[in-house]
């Protein structure tokens, strides 16, 4: 589904991603771990289409080159980014926001806007699916939301937009055990054989709930090791040094 080949990304002359390669197939969950500053969030931003970077290399989604597409076009193609720090948009209700997003994506695909009745039905369904408090949907996007509520709201939006590729950028940061469980639950319910998930995380903890098929370690802009979920446990136990030091010696 997602194919990243030799991706490099720089900002203000500093290279952050240095020839990254990654293949993600439909139905898979990939975890990306690594120490701070390794480029994890940059990877998420670059795939989503954030403007700040000079990008070289190739990113294709289901065979389509998405590097030339604007972020809203990539979203319509099926990319979803659950932000590490979701932004607040005062005065714009969650419902209104999602309605606009859903219909704009439909327009891109040549579909007519969703009938209000159907939209409301879908809204209620997805709210229940991710256990989102009904009251939150009439409030402004993320305004006054606690950290946990913001992350839950991201998963709710994911449920509503039904993406092909979901990238969760440190979704677990700032969450207590209960919130973590609810967020992970939501992600697991949305998983299917037709979509794929990339989970970017610092800690092994989230991966107890969202079981990855593959674990990759991102260090200094490149993936230096890939493995299965056992790799995550090993990292939990030993840290990153044992992987990095041999690298540094080279």
């Amino acid at each position, binding site marked *: 589904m997602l194919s990243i080949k030799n991706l490099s990304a720089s900002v203000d002359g500093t290279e952050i991603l240095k020839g990254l390669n990654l293949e993600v197939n439909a139905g898979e969950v990939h975890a990306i771990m690594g120490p701070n500053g390794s480029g994890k969030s940059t990877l998420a931003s670059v795939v989503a289409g954030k*403007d700040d970077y000079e990008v070289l290399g190739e990113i294709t989604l289901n065979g389509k080159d998405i590097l*030339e597409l604007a972020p*809203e076009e990539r979203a319509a193609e099926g990319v979803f980014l659950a932000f590490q720090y979701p932004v607040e948009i005062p005065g714009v209700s969650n419902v*209104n926001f999602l309605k606009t997003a859903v219909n704009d994506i439909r327009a891109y695909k040549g579909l007519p806007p969703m009938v209000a009745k159907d939209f409301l039905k879908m809204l209620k369904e997805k709210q229940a699916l991710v256990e989102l408090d009904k009251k939150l949907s009439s409030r402004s996007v993320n305004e006054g939301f606690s950290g946990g509520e913001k992350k839950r709201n991201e998963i709710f939006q994911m449920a509503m937009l039904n993406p092909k590729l979901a990238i969760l950028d440190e979704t677990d940061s700032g969450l207590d055990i209960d919130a973590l469980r609810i967020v992970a639950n939501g992600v697991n319910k949305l998983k299917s054989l037709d979509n794929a998930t990339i989970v970017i995380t610092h800690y092994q903890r989230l991966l107890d709930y969202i079981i990855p098929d593959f674990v990759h370690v991102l260090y200094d802009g490149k993936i230096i090791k890939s493995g299965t979920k056992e790799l995550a446990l090993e990292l939990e136990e030993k840290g990153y040094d044992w992987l990095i030091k041999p690298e540094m010696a080279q």
Partner: protein
Amino acid sequence: MGKYTEEQLEKELETQEYKYGFVTDIETEKAPIGLSEDIIRLISSKKNEPNWLLEYRLKAYNAWLTMKEPEWAHVNYPKVNFQDIYYYAAPKPKKQLSSLDEVDSELLEMYDKLGISIDEQKKLSNVAVDIVMDSVSVKTTFQDTLAKLGIIFGSFSDAVQNHPELVKKYMGTIVPYTDNYYAALNAAVFTDGSFCYIPKGVKCPMELSTYFRINEAQTGQFERTLVVADQGSYVSYLEGCTAPMRDENQLHAAVVELIALDDAEIKYSTVQNWYPGDKEGKGGIYNFVTKRGLCEKNAKISWTQVETGSAVTWKYPSCILKGDNSVGEFYSVAVTNNFQQADTGTKMLHLGKNTKSTIISKGVSAGGSQNSYRGLVKINKNATNARNFSQCDSLLMGNKCGAHTFPYIEVDNKSAKVEHEATTSKIGEDQIFYCNQRGIDTESAIKLIVNGYAKDVLNKLPMEFAVEAQKLLAISLEGSVG
């Protein structure tokens, strides 16, 4: 790159036609150009006015001659030549208008273009409409329905003929002709406007609305509106304006007086979309308006406005909180783009005891425009327990425009609680990227965000207006991505 770029937005702006820019070809009878005592006498006689009103006009005219045109720091415009304006223009109706079925067909066509098919109005939305085309009012609808409740709603000219005692009692008591330069001019040459009287204890069941047009080139629009809500009554009044595209500047100097007697409430909403000038800053309406309301005991006046048009705007809808426990509110969204200039705000004068005022002002500046909030909250020495809360926010788009806040807070009583807050911000790139990532393109994102920003004010508008206002906000900001 496939992204929606700033250049593309700019191009759209250039081709965006001012929606309501059209001119009707109805023949209009005009007074000779210029201003003099003779012209005033002519206007007064054309309208068959009683002598006391002619005297009032002449007094105002003489006062105006002694006054100087005001100058404001943040507003620059070519001086108005007052002798280069037609002060009276009446459409020649083809026959006497007694019912809407007999309205001039060209006029009806114009009503259609304005999107206010009167028949539909009558059947569906239950809104009474008074059309002012240039300087004369065409017969109003719904007069019969309102008459049953004793509500008087019609043109100012009609009110002078049919209810002279009411007009004489209240006109000029809130905005005397000595108040300011444009108020004096208006008092001398006003040709029409609306008059509304709600009797004691009556709650007006429908929203009263007025549409304006400036049709002829160089005709200044000098309307005068007077709304009197007698004790315990309620009225919601809507004022919405459109104007055709013109090269010459057009002057609009209106006066609106509101009187809310004991326990009465007046809700006055305005959506203003006068021609703002072209993208080079040429042409456009000058909107200099004096709007003021007086509250007696337990009375309430709220001003709600969405201002997106005019080349130059100068207006400070104000409340005199004379009666104890009276309440004044001001909710405003003012958008300026290209070369527009706005200097608007409000004045809340707390005189009585336990008075309360709320000010929420949201400014949006784009292009090369200047948008200033100028407000006064004055707590008089004897105004015990006064309360005021003001929130003035500015949203800037680009660095060629300006957003300014000049609040004057004068407190002479120790029991007052006055709070004023102002913030300036821009639309965050992060916010736009967030919307993009959810499939919403940049232009739509900006519309969403600006409407969200203005929500507190838009919520105060009556439904029909709120929808038009949202569309107006979006149109007026096209091409101004931050």
